[in-house]
């Protein structure tokens, strides 16, 4: 065998890099559309009046959650980044705790006037409806962009559905000034749980169909 030997290592690394680039090409338009949906929905329904008056830690937590839902969770689900198992566990547990803390906020601090107007139906929309509508549109973007068939393991779709749910929940958190459990628990977190369950079922179906195709 006198022919120069192919560098298979480089070929394989190149192929993997190419598939990563293809995934990023699918991901970026979907991310832009999702940003437009969340931004548009907030523009239509209105941003809560006390957004910048919230305690700094709460605002910081909400901004971190936007990063998680738009970048980190989908990137893990799509196979653009591969954190270790411990990092994934930390992200999942931290994400859930941060979501609850950011949604409920600091007890006793309410923009009572804003809350009264919101609960009286200032915008004519319930928080749960806003959440499910936002989540539904983002989920559709995910399904249509092929986000749920990028990785072989079905577990990967949960990262994306978690991102979808978190994006919808954050939209509602920045829209609704309520922090009391009586409203947040059923209206925000309850709606998010329903969305997460529905999105997971739809995403799994899309995943299985995509893998079979």
């Amino acid at each position, binding site marked *: *065998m006198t022919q120069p*030997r*192919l560098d*298979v*290592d480089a*070929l*394989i*690394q190149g*192929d*993997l*890099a190419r*598939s*990563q680039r293809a*995934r990023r090409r699918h991901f970026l338009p979907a991310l832009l559309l999702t940003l437009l949906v969340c931004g548009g929905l907030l523009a239509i329904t209105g941003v809560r009046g006390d957004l910048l008056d919230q305690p700094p830690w709460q605002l910081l937590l909400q901004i971190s959650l936007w990063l998680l839902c738009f970048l980190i969770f989908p990137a893990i689900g799509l*196979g653009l980044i*591969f954190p270790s*198992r411990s990092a994934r566990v930390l992200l999942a547990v931290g994400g859930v705790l941060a979501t609850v803390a950011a949604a409920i906020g600091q007890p006793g601090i309410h923009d009572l006037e804003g809350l009264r107007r919101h609960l009286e139906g200032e915008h004519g929309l319930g928080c749960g409806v806003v959440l499910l509508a936002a989540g539904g549109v983002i989920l559709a973007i995910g399904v249509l962009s092929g986000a749920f068939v990028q*990785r*072989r*393991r079905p577990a*990967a779709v949960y990262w994306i559905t978690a991102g979808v749910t978190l994006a919808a929940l954050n939209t509602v958190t920045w829209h609704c000034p309520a922090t009391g459990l009586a409203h947040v628990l059923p209206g925000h977190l309850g709606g998010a749980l329903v969305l997460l369950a529905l999105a997971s079922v739809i995403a799994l179906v899309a995943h299985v169909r995509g893998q079979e195709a």
Partner: protein
Amino acid sequence: MGRPRDPELAGLYQAMERYIDGDARAYARVHATLGRRLRGFLLRILSDREIVEDLLQVTFLKAHLARDRFTLQGGDPDGAVQAWYFAIARNAAMDHLRREYRKSRREVKHGAPDGDDLDPMAKIADQGPTVEELGLDRERELEIVERVQAAIARLPEGQREVVELHKLQGMSMAEVAERLDLREGAVRVRAHRAYKALARWLVPSIFAIFWSAP
């Protein structure tokens, strides 16, 4: 009663899963863990180091192209990754040997003078198998042995132990039961399931080998 797990392979299955999902660093880990072992394995089949290096590359390339078809079998995920790569390496080596065998056969044919009357040996009637036929038979036997070994390796650990002790080591069911500290009935059930699975996996392929034989 399972085989002791190789500490060097720890985490290989996780790396393989990430590699299948597109992680280049995980591929490097798989390559680093298995490269040396595969080279040693191929060197036991072929002595030519240059060819072994080529076949090593072929093995990684074939594995890369077929990575989506990798499935976990048995109770040792890290060992399953190694077994999968070894099966690809073995097939690559066998393909190479077959090609070399055919090539040398063609060369012998082309090198022979035309017409049987020039070859005094051609006049002697030979009812026994020719060297070529013996070679093909040997090749076929090896292929069957490999398939059987691969099928046994696919069995769940509990069933594999029973088959290995009963069929390969010739123990009676009672002896196997005593050795594995199980009731004889349980051993018989495992053996029945194992042989049923082996029959399902092996019969079509062995049939195919004979069917495709000239």
